[in-house]
């Protein structure tokens, strides 16, 4: 077991006042709170902060913890001294103190159950809390259906009453036609119940991974489709990608940029299937050699065309 330097975790001096400790904790907690933070390891950091604060905010626990300071040897790992705990009385605060998540073995060996605030009542039966998580899926998953793995950090109570944080991986079936904003409820996959209460549920909020060229709105899918000026002007049949595979698309003659072509029912295959919209974008061939420059000049001379005719600036 490793010794934990709670002062370092909160980035405060060992001589810090209780007010300074509170300030440091609040500041870091705002930064790493899992509901707010974008930091990748926020969950873990926040847990460490909570544990450090749990000890240092309580003058009794802090004094006891300070006494360990000089007595441990980093090479041998940490073991509580044999007389640990004698002469101290740890009052567990009765109300919730942010410790949903399990504290480290280090904490448990020093302060055990009595030290943790917000412990569970005995002889009490209640259904476990529901949990929430986000699951990222690809648009293509929604067209075909898929299986995705999701890793979750879950607090778990061991048979001897300790709370540990356990990472578990679930394989979840992503049904065909799933859309962003929908949720998948997995019954019994939330927090364990207390006493004989049954486990809570796990809600997975569906979010699509951003796609290189598709954009999704509800069940409709949009694709900005580049076409050559002559394809738009003369009409053409071109190969275009769709999430369900490439298709041949007929572009009508005299199509303008921004024109929307709707492929009915080729959006997300939901109960009411969405549509696929192809939004035409006219791509300009570069005039980067003599031949193409010549060609543009000929167009300039031979085609009477003022793109700003409607702006009354001529």
């Amino acid at each position: 077991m490793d010794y934990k330097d709670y002062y370092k975790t909160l980035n405060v001096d060992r001589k810090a006042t209780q007010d300074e400790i509170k300030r440091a904790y609040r500041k870091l907690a705002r930064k790493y709170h899992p509901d707010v933070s974008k930091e990748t390891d926020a969950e873990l950091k926040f847990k460490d902060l909570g544990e450090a604060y749990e000890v240092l905010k309580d003058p009794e626990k802090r004094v006891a913890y300070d006494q360990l300071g000089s007595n441990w040897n980093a090479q041998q790992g940490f073991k509580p001294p044999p007389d640990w705990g004698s002469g101290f009385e740890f009052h567990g605060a009765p109300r919730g103190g942010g410790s949903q998540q399990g504290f480290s073995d280090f904490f448990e060996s020093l302060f055990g159950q009595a030290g943790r605030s917000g412990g569970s009542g005995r002889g009490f039966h209640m259904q476990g809390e529901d949990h929430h998580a986000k699951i990222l899926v690809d648009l293509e998953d929604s067209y075909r259906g898929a299986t995705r793995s999701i890793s979750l950090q879950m607090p778990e109570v061991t048979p001897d009453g300790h709370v540990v944080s356990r990472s578990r991986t679930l394989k979840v079936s992503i049904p065909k036609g799933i859309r962003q904003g929908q949720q998948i409820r997995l019954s019994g996959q939330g927090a364990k119940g207390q006493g004989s209460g049954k486990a809570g549920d796990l809600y997975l909020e569906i979010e699509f991974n951003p796609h290189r060229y598709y954009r999704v709105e509800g069940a409709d899918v949009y694709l900005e489709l580049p076409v050559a000026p002559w394809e738009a002007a003369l009409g053409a049949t071109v190969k275009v990608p769709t999430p369900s595979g490439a298709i041949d698309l007929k572009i009508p003659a005299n199509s303008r940029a921004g024109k929307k072509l709707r492929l009915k029912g080729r959006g997300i295959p939901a109960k009411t299937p969405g549509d696929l919209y192809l939004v035409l974008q006219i791509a300009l061939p570069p005039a980067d050699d003599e031949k193409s420059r010549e060609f543009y000049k000929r167009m300039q001379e031979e085609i009477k065309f003022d793109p700003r005719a409607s702006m009354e600036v001529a």
Partner: protein
Amino acid sequence: MSGERNGERILVGEVLEEGYLVSLAELCRSCTVETQTITTLVTEGILDPTGEDVEHWRFTISSLKRVKTVIHLQRDLGVNLAGAALALELLDRIAELERS
């Protein structure tokens, strides 16, 4: 509910539409909070249920997560309800900006 494929357990859940609604009792159960907590959140304008009276209140599925976020922020950061509500709205806005 679960299916089996290649010996591995694949969980099959129930798909809930965006417009899925839950009652006050279900919301309290899911978040392990008292009715009082929810009515306070409604008074504060953090939750906006449909239905005329408490008995007929129905909450959107996203309320489940919102209630929890508010409770966690209050508990962990020492902010009051109005502060948690403000943070929640700002989080919503960040999410919206990130989507567009």
